[in-house]
């Protein structure tokens, strides 16, 4: 019955014109625009996606729609009309009344957006109760109904729990309940599935799509992922560096992008299904020499139990073989143990049991047991370029250190070698004098790679090297990795949560789940004809760049 009363409230139209948000980078600095001249209009009940890379201003626009600007930012100019209400001209008091009532917000990380000290229920109903929209007990009833509708387990009691007691996907649903409880006219979803694993993402996405559609609410969906957007949006607004590149229907954007930048985004997002010419699908064991071999590896932590095993097992009975010049992809969701595997091989985490050999010699578990040759031969590249580079050292110093350690170069030879390395990773030599803080994310990752290459290793362990990067930049890094392997014959152990990146780089594929290998084989065959149910689910969960993809998926959610 609530639906029938409030149905008329649903779906206001949204018009934005000439929106400008400015920021002051530090006290006394001139204001610089973060987004400028943003104009669009969205009919009631339709969904608009804001898409762009890091720094494109998409979240800033989403927050501006609620009359909110983050610290140091200011809503400088423009008009935002939600139905008859002018958001930017509204008083602080009116705005407070709008938020959590007519406009609702779903944040990126539910884990951070829920107050750890209060129960879910208290937070879900807080807005409507404060606004006097309904009584506490009515709000509780409605929340329970929403929990059930959003397919949360135990909807009657889950509200009594604290945020740390439920999973990330469940929290994201609870946040949707918090947004929907006021029957808002406009729902803003700010990267609502980005922090989730792929298999969870698809379930949450399906639920979100259903509830938004059923209510006929107007929605703005912020994302960096075109494939996700294609599933939920009617219109797409492409942003680049704070300005509108293209505004069109989702079909137009996918099939006939007009703008240059949009085309580049699309290119990077479309998985290259065609394999590079020199790649083949035959058994990888027949290529090259044996480089790395792992037999029945066990890794765990905590005190040893009676059976002589650690209390918590991270990796169990893992075996693999990687030959020279080959690339093995290791894929798994968070908690699958894939990073632990990288750390164990690198010598950072001691395995509990099992054999590791490198170049047919035993590789000691601990770093202290390894020799200079082994240090040089195995290099690592990490996910977060930010803290993988010493912020206090210049790029030159970072690149010269491995050269000093492993080789007897003269000063001039070293300088020449550093320049060679920069050429390899396509960086200009002017970056040598700067510190990592002055580099962009992509540039930092290139320096990371160059430092690994400086050692002239046989094996580079790549741990989520592109997951912190924007699509276009990560595309470039993947191309670079492929080029380097072709030119230098280095082998990769490539760890990722993203099948399409692994497919771009690797010959073989290993799928990890909860510390166990569920499937291991040649990359193209495994992806095209997965044997294990989990692999199939993993592959099927990756959104495709088609508007009807999500509706065709059949998952039993929850």
């Amino acid at each position, binding site marked *: 019955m609530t639906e029938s009363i409030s149905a008329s409230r649903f779906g206001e139209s949204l018009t934005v014109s000439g929106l400008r948000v400015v920021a002051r980078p*530090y006290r006394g600095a001139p204001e610089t625009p973060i987004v400028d001249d943003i104009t669009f209009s969205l009919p009631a009940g339709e969904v608009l996606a804001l898409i762009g890379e890091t720094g494109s201003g998409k979240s800033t626009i989403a927050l501006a729609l609620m009359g909110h600007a983050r610290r140091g930012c200011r809503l400088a100019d423009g008009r935002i009309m939600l139905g008859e209400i002018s958001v930017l001209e509204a008083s602080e008091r009116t705005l407070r009344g709008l938020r959590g009532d007519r406009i609702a917000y779903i944040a990126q990380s539910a884990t951070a957006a829920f107050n750890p000290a209060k129960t879910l229920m208290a937070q879900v109903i807080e807005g409507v109760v404060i606004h006097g929209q309904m009584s506490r007990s009515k709000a509780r009833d409605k929340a329970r109904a929403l929990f059930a509708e959003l397919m949360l387990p135990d909807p009657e009691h889950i509200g009594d729990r604290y945020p740390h007691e439920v999973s990330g996907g469940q929290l994201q649903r609870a946040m949707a309940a918090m947004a929907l409880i006021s029957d808002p006219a406009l729902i803003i979803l700010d990267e609502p599935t980005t922090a989730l694993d792929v298999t969870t993402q698809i379930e949450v996405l399906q639920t979100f799509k259903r509830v938004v559609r059923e209510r006929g609410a107007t929605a703005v969906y912020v994302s960096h992922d075109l494939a996700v957007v294609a599933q939920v949006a009617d219109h797409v607004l492409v942003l680049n560096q704070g300005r509108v590149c293209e505004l069109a229907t989702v079909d137009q954007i996918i099939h006939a992008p007009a703008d240059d930048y949009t085309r580049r985004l699309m290119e990077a997002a479309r998985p290259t299904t065609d394999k590079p010419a020199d790649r083949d699908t035959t058994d990888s064991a027949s290529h090259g020499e044996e480089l790395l071999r792992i037999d029945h590896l066990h890794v765990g932590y905590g005190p040893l139990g009676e059976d002589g095993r650690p209390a918590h097992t991270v990796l169990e009975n893992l075996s693999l073989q990687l030959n020279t010049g080959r690339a093995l992809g290791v894929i798994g969701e968070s908690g699958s143990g894939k990073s632990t595997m990288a750390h164990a091989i690198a010598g950072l985490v001691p395995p509990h049991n099992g054999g590791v050999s490198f170049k047919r010699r035993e590789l000691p578990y601990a770093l202290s047991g390894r020799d200079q040759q082994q240090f040089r031969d195995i290099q690592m590249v990490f996910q977060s370029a930010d*803290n993988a580079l*010493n912020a206090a050292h210049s790029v030159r110093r970072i690149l010269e250190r491995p050269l000093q350690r492993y080789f007897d170069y003269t000063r001039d030879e070293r300088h020449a070698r550093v320049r060679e390395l920069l050429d390899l990773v396509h960086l200009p030599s002017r970056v040598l004098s700067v510190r990592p803080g002055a580099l*962009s994310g*992509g540039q930092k990752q290139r320096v990371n790679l160059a430092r690994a290459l400086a050692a002239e290793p046989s094996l580079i362990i790549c741990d989520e090297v592109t997951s912190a990067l924007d699509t276009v930049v990560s595309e*470039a890094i993947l*191309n670079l990795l492929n080029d380097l392997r072709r030119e230098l014959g280095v082998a990769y152990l490539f760890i990722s949560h993203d099948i399409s990146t692994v497919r771009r780089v690797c010959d073989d594929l290993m799928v990890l789940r909860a510390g166990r290998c569920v499937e291991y084989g040649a990359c193209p065959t495994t992806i095209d004809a997965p044997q294990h149910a989990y692999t199939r689910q993993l592959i099927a969960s990756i959104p495709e760049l088609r508007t009807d993809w999500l509706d065709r998926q059949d998952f039993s959610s929850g």
Partner: protein
Amino acid sequence: MSTNNASSSRASDAPAFPPWRSRLAHTPAKLWVGLSLFGFWLFIAVFGAWLAPHGMGAMVSNQVFASPSLAFPLGTDHLGRDVLSRMLIATRYTVAMALAAAVLSSAIGATFGLTAALVPRFVDIGISQIMDALISIPSKMMALLIVAVFGSSIPLLIVAAVATYAPGAYRIARSLAMNQAAMEYVAIARCRGESRVHIALVELLPNIFGPVLTDMGMRFVFIVLLLSALSFLGLGIQPPIADLGSMVRENISGLNQGSLAVLAPAIGIGTLTVGANLLIDALSSKHDD
């Protein structure tokens, strides 16, 4: 090629650092007030002894607690000595002892902090447990205890201040070093086969140096306050030499006459510590503005 384009187009939006001139023009008044107060006392500490018209112990007037006059701009003290001259000389002891103790505390703290971040866990736990016990002794208690046992010569006062404040410096340095040691560049350095000493000095130290310096500034302020308080209690530096704190003590009987002999050194200590505190705050918060 396309890879190159992507990187160079990004290079343009690398964070731009503002020119220092415009930055300086907008620094808060805190910085200028702090800088001038602290700079003033630093100047006195270095050159005061040469500027003093009279010696420290010279009884130049037969009037005690005399009001300011042309001859004695800050009046005279309880023995008829020139307050200005005594302050000019005493400042050196106040500043130098505190500075020495602060530098030593931070150096000891940073050394142990860096060590704790790199040694096996049980060693870290051992060091930390002992330091925690030392921190749980309120600062003045520790200093009083040491003074009670060993007396109060200048080196022992410095030792007392270091024993009081080095454990806190350790705790700060350790947590800074631990944060850095958890970063991936340290893991990379370990995989490169670098020694612990290299990691501590070359990789970690430059990254914790700034915050440790800020912490040293805070410790300087606290140590000035501690040593002045000890002197004020008559347990600090002993006659014939005097620091600002002991000048306050000697002349406390002049308080009911409102004599500058007690007020001036007390205000001297206050302006030194407040100035230093403002300066440290202005310098350390500049980064996150």
